[in-house]
């Protein structure tokens, strides 16, 4: 059962899987902004703005 929270940018509903681990990325379906899961506790989720995905040279 996903946990629903509000996008801090545009106020849209964001669904977070209830088994998400800290550090997983979720994005707002309306504005596309990406958040990182900080913690899930008692059916509530804390999000923070996601840091950029890393880059790696090569292959």
């Amino acid at each position: 059962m996903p946990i629903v929270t509000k996008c801090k940018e545009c106020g849209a509903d964001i669904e977070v899987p209830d088994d998400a681990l800290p550090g997983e990325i979720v994005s707002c379906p309306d504005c596309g902004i990406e958040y990182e899961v900080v913690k899930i506790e008692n059916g509530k989720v804390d999000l923070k703005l996601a840091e950029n995905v890393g880059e790696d040279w090569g292959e």
Partner: protein
Amino acid sequence: MNDPVKFLLDLINIYSPSQEERRASEFAYSYINGLKVGEVYIDEANNVVWNVSSGSPRIYLIGHIDTVPGMIKASFDGNEIYGRGSVDAKSALSALLHASLGLSGTGCGVTFAAVTDEERQSEGMKTLLKHVERPDFAVFGEPTGTDSVAIAYKGRLLVKKGYRSSSMHSSSPEVSNSAFDMMINDIESIKGRARSMNEEARSFFDMVTVQVVKCGCGSDSALNKTPSDAFMYVDVRFPPSFKSHEVESALFSGAYSVEDRLEGFSTHPESILARAFYRGIYDVLGKHGRFVKKLGTCDGNVLREYYDVPAVAYGPGDAKLSHTDNERVSVAEYLASINVIKESVSWLCANAKQS
């Protein structure tokens, strides 16, 4: 007998640069055949294809068995395995193979493939895609390090351009451009157009980059004449937000030929495949995984030409050691990566079935 370390050492010791993979493929075939799980065969491109189990969803685990040229024999000091391909990418290939063995009972359709020619023209991957069914997910064996998973690769255009002018005495004033001058002016224009495409870019991954990888002009027998002919190969890398045809029309004009074309691809961190690896890394290593975007290309780019399905790359080793004379991989990392792949794909199987 299932022995991941011995298998990897033996595989490294079979020299297998692109187009010379047959012996390595036969070795992998015999090893897999001895495991008595599923069905294995070698196809016309010398790919080794192992149908581990049938079911749904269908998941491909694909590594490449060729290496860059330059034999370096395998050695093992108790902690690290050295040798050509230990990083790129026989350890990742071997990790996928041994993880596959633990996935036969998941109820998913698991296919492992050791493909040829990745370091050249990806002929192995192109042949494989002609005779296997559409996957639902694909995992490619490339060195990302055990705690990182690659979720995006850039696309590539390789373009050849030629220039022709009249030849003059090299003492003459610069009244007209030589073929060399035309080439230099043109590459400056191409790079300028690429820069204007990068105004919004926030990272190297988001940039369109242009590099001349080969060029030539003039003649050794006429060092007092300006060149009448010149040529260059231009390697363009671009993010998945651009299609190759858009990049081509934005950068190139006049006469040219496209020698290679690969679209970029990305898999969202929220996709069930990326989440599976995030969890697998956490469960096995006890730390949070890292998503990375690669500036290069891999066989995943070829897959995405055929099928728009989620794909990631994963494997032990530091990509910066790829193609170097110092290729080496930690055995602890290598063995851990087998468990990460097994855990990740098992979770994917269970959860993709529910969704």
